[in-house]
């Protein structure tokens, strides 16, 4: 049979191996001479090695072909197929076989009746339905599909089961070619291909409006007839057939229908829900192929690489893909030169045609995260229309702010919005996507919710005289009011209540958030029963505002219940469980159990970390939460590392203009500041401010809070002019963002007043502090530590204005507040005591003043967190105390201490 020697002893085999390795990469011309020399007179060995070397052909695919051969040709044997030609199924007579596949056989059939003849395609499903319940559900689904009537969708006419229980579907018969073959065969140009593709989009969009997802869009499912009409086949069939399968627990099965590398979507690979966004992705893959003649992913043969490529790699830009010189042609793939010839152009021209808009459009459809793709097939189609008309398109390189901007342009055109409303809309956008994902199980709910939300946004209240600056809260209040009218549709009502409750929470309006979420939970418990997955999700959500309003006990109960439910529903390492851990960590942090909080945060981080890119945001948030906890515990190095990791995650996976960038930069700056790394902290604050301005807008809270912290840092450094600028800006930003009565504003006023006091601008300082005091008393309450801080500073200012008698009652009040919360050694209590000492000195009560001074300077000077500035100020007060007291030696002592800038505790 071949030239193998009869006996291959281990020794001989080792020799074979050695010689083969030696000659494998040798030019053929040298091979013979080498072997002659190496084998000597063993002609048999030489011939054998020569034979092996001839067989060493990299491109030979005999083994692959044999495997594919077995896998591919698994259609039923011809005998059983032809048997039923001529027979009848229902009113149809079978004419011939069109094709077959794993799910069944497709026949051409005729409806023969006296009046007309109609050709149809009948798909006989190769499985039996046993469960009558499933069958009944299929009939319902089938009816929905049968109602789809669109010129580019092959109709589903009918269906049923044969006498032996085999299900079948009767469909419009399409005589045409798969779309990719059609395009290449007709040499369609890029623009012609786009026009054709837009028709597919319109069919898909129509189906989505009817809440049907195709689930299996690919070239072979789109036939183009001789007159150029594309027809989409098998709409929703994948699910219909799958629903009868044993592996299915219902109509909303998640996961993969097919795992052929070419057509898999990230959510299929990861067993996520199949939604309209899955079809958008499949359209993206199709467009990629039609434009470039290549698959979007070259996943090769390695299965582990496949999942990774689909979930993590961004496909090559179409314009780049067609330009590459050597396309490593996979089996069955097109030769590169044919690609441009089939499109009636040259390689460079094709690449230029695709560059820019079309690259962006395709890649937008192919985003990993379903919610970040085009929101509808119509939107995709519209973008192509704009491109064809040489108008600017929506698709841009992947950036976050761009998408936000786009969402707003589309949903509230003409309404000028406050910054808060922007956040609100983004939150609603997410909520709408969530709705979208439950499309199959909550058809009506999804539709009504989105209509409802659109109505709220699209029509500013005509009764509102300020029509143009309608606030987020007004919109919400209006929405909440309208929800109460939806009693007859509890599912819609509950979903809306949850959404609005969540938005209230994001706006910091905890009480109405709790009201909404409680109502939603109540309705859902009644409607769905205690064990429905939505109950756990709602409980998790409700716990958050409860934590913020210090109702820890209830929050704890809800979170535990949700955690247990999620564990049994989704398993210990599910993201649902991770979300519960995350919230529990917040709860424990709030109640001061930092160790447990850190443990839970770490658990949630571990789970999200194992989930890959899709949960990068949650992973970053988990790290940030853990960092927050560690900061409280003063573990600043670890916190810094975590923030840096979180920041890197956001930048890599969500983009440089994602809002979390701004938050993490600020938090990182705060940690660095606490660590005493003032130089880096200052730079980081400036970065945070720039990022927040870019991403969130000039008037966002975050801009203000970074500014005020930067201002204070500069103040501590002694750069008063720059500090004053930052602090005044902070004040302006917070006033714009929150209105003049918000505690943030009071905080800025106090910080600015402290600077002005240092500068000797006492009058303005006094009026700022009095304003801050009023705001605090009305907002955070008269006993808050913020009030004590402001009272302390006001006491200092009044003392310096020679009104120590006015200062004393304020400082006594401040001390009362401080003592209630702080031990004697707390630096803030010490600071207030020293301010009081200063006032007492001015009142001439030197003994009392000295005692307070001696008691408290060591505390302040020994504190790592109090700025040197405070200690220095206390030294100056000491100097003036002893001068007034006429004790120049002591005064000199403190003068000296100030000069050497070193504050030693008293012995």
């Amino acid at each position, binding site marked *: 049979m071949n030239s193998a020697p009869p006996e291959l002893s281990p020794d001989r085999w080792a020799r074979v191996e050695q010689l083969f390795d030696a000659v494998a990469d040798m030019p053929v011309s040298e091979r013979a001479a080498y072997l002659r020399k190496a084998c000597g007179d063993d002609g048999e060995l030489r011939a054998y090695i020569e034979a092996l070397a001839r067989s060493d052909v990299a491109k030979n695919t005999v083994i692959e072909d044999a495997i594919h051969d077995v896998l591919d040709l698994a259609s039923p044997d011809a005998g059983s197929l032809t048997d039923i030609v001529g027979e009848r199924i229902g009113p149809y007579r079978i004419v011939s076989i069109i094709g077959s596949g794993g799910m069944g056989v497709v026949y051409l059939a005729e409806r023969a009746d006296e009046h007309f003849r109609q050709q149809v395609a009948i798909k006989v499903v190769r499985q039996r339905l046993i469960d009558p319940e499933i069958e009944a559900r299929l009939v319902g689904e089938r009816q929905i599909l049968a109602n789809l009537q669109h010129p580019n969708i092959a109709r589903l006419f009918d269906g049923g089961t044969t006498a032996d229980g085999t299900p079948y579907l009767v469909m419009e018969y399409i005589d045409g070619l798969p779309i990719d073959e059609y395009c290449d065969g007709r040499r369609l140009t890029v623009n012609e291909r786009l026009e054709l593709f837009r028709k597919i989009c319109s069919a898909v969009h129509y189906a989505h409006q009817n809440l049907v997802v195709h689930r299996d869009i690919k070239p072979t499912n789109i036939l183009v007839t001789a007159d150029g009409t594309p027809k989409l086949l098998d709409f929703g069939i994948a699910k219909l057939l799958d629903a009868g399968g044993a592996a299915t627990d219902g109509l909303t099965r998640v996961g993969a229908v097919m795992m052929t590398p070419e057509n898999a979507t990230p959510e299929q690979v990861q067993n996520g829900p199949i939604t309209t966004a899955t079809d958008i992705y499949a359209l993206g893959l199709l467009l990629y192929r039609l434009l470039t003649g290549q698959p979007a992913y070259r996943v090769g043969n390695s299965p582990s690489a496949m999942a990774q490529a689909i979930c993590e790699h961004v496909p090559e830009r179409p314009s780049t893909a067609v330009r590459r010189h050597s396309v490593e042609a996979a089996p*069955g793939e097109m030769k590169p030169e044919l690609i441009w010839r089939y499109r009636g152009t040259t390689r460079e021209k094709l690449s230029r045609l695709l560059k820019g808009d079309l690259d962006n459009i395709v890649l937008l459809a192919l985003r990993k995260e379903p919610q970040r793709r085009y929101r509808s097939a119509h939107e995709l189609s519209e973008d192509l229309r704009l491109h064809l008309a040489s108008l600017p398109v929506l698709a841009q390189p992947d950036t976050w702010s761009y998408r936000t901007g786009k969402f707003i342009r589309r949903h509230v055109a003409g309404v000028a919005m406050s910054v808060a409303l922007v956040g609100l809309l983004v939150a609603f956008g997410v909520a709408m996507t969530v709705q979208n994902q439950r499309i199959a199980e909550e058809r009506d709910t999804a539709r009504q919710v989105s209509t409802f939300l659109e109505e709220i946004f699209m029509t500013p209240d005509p009764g509102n005289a300020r029509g143009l600056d309608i606030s987020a809260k007004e919109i919400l209040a209006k929405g909440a009011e309208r929800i109460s009218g939806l009693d007859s549709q509890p599912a819609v009502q509950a979903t809306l209540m949850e959404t609005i409750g969540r938005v209230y929470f994001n706006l910091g309006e905890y009480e109405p958030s709790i009201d909404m979420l409680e109502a939603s939970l109540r309705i859902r418990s009644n409607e769905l029963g205690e064990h429905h997955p939505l109950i756990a999700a709602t409980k998790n959500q409700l716990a958050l505002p409860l934590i913020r309003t210090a109702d820890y006990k209830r929050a704890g109960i809800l979170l535990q219940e949700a955690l247990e439910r999620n564990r049994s529903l989704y398993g210990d390492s599910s993201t649902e469980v991770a979300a519960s851990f995350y919230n529990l960590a917040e709860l424990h942090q709030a109640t001061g159990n930092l160790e447990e909080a850190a443990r839970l945060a770490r658990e949630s981080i571990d789970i999200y970390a194992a989930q890959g890119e899709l949960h990068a945001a949650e992973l970053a948030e988990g790290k940030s939460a853990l960092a927050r906890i560690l900061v409280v515990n003063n573990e600043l190095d670890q916190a810094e590392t975590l923030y840096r990791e979180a920041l890197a995650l956001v930048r890599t996976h969500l983009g440089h203009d994602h809002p979390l960038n701004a938050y993490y930069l600020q938090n990182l700056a705060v940690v660095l500041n606490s660590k005493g790394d003032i130089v880096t902290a200052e730079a980081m604050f400036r970065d945070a401010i720039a990022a927040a301005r870019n991403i969130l807008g000039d008037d966002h809270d975050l801009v203000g809070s970074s500014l005020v912290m930067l201002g204070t840092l500069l103040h501590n450094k002694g750069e008063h002019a720059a500090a004053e600028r930052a602090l005044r800006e902070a004040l302006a930003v917070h006033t714009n963002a929150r209105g003049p009565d918000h505690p943030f504003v009071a905080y800025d006023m106090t910080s600015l007043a402290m600077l002005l006091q240092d500068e000797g601008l006492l009058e303005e300082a006094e009026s700022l502090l009095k304003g801050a005091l009023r705001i605090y008393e009305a907002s955070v309450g008269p006993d808050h530590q913020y009030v004590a801080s402001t009272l302390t500073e006001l006491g200092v200012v009044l003392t310096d204005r020679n009104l120590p008698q006015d200062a004393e009652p304020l400082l006594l009040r401040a001390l009362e507040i401080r003592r209630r919360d702080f031990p004697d050694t707390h630096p803030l209590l010490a600071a207030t005591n020293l301010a009081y000492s200063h006032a007492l000195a001015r009142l001439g009560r030197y003994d009392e003043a000295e005692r307070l001074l001696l008691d408290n300077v060591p505390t302040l000077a020994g504190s790592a967190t109090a700025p040197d500035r405070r200690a220095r100020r206390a030294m100056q007060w000491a100097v003036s105390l002893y001068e007034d007291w006429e004790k120049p030696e002591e005064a000199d002592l403190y003068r000296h201490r100030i000069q050497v800038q070193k504050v030693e505790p008293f012995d």
Partner: protein
Amino acid sequence: MACARAVTTLLGQWREGDEGALVELAPLVYEELRALARRYMGSEGAGHTLQATGLVNEAFIRLAGMDVPWSDRAHFYAVAARSMRRILVDHAKARRREKRGGAARHASLETVVIPDAAAGPADLLDIDEALERLARIDARKGEVIVLHYFGGMTYDEMAEALDVSPATVHRDLRLAKAWILNELRPA
């Protein structure tokens, strides 16, 4: 999910040196692959070939999930590759039997009926027999063929599973492939 945990645990135990874990693991993998193969075979249209490696990968995701250490993943694929070989060879044998003994009439959910293959250049059963002979001469080279072609494993993955260097895997595969092609060539 319970299943995923079992598989990840078994993989871990196997890695720790518990050969019994492999005994438990192999049938799980085999059954999952067989079920998948039954469901998918031939369901793709022309030009979009179903790949053995796609099946192996899906079996992996279904059984083990994504959060499995890389080295365990390589070992899983090795088990799956061997199962895949068995499944495909069984199918090919069934096909040969039908060719001789007349076709089974009805395709049901339980049996996948393999039709006559278009006469290809090589038969999987011939390859399988050659592979058997190779394994007798050099077990590791036979293994490399199975892992690569039936499991779609990369050099790095095979190196991990076989505990040799990727360069060795490369040389093994090259010779093993040439050897098999040489065996298949008519005298």
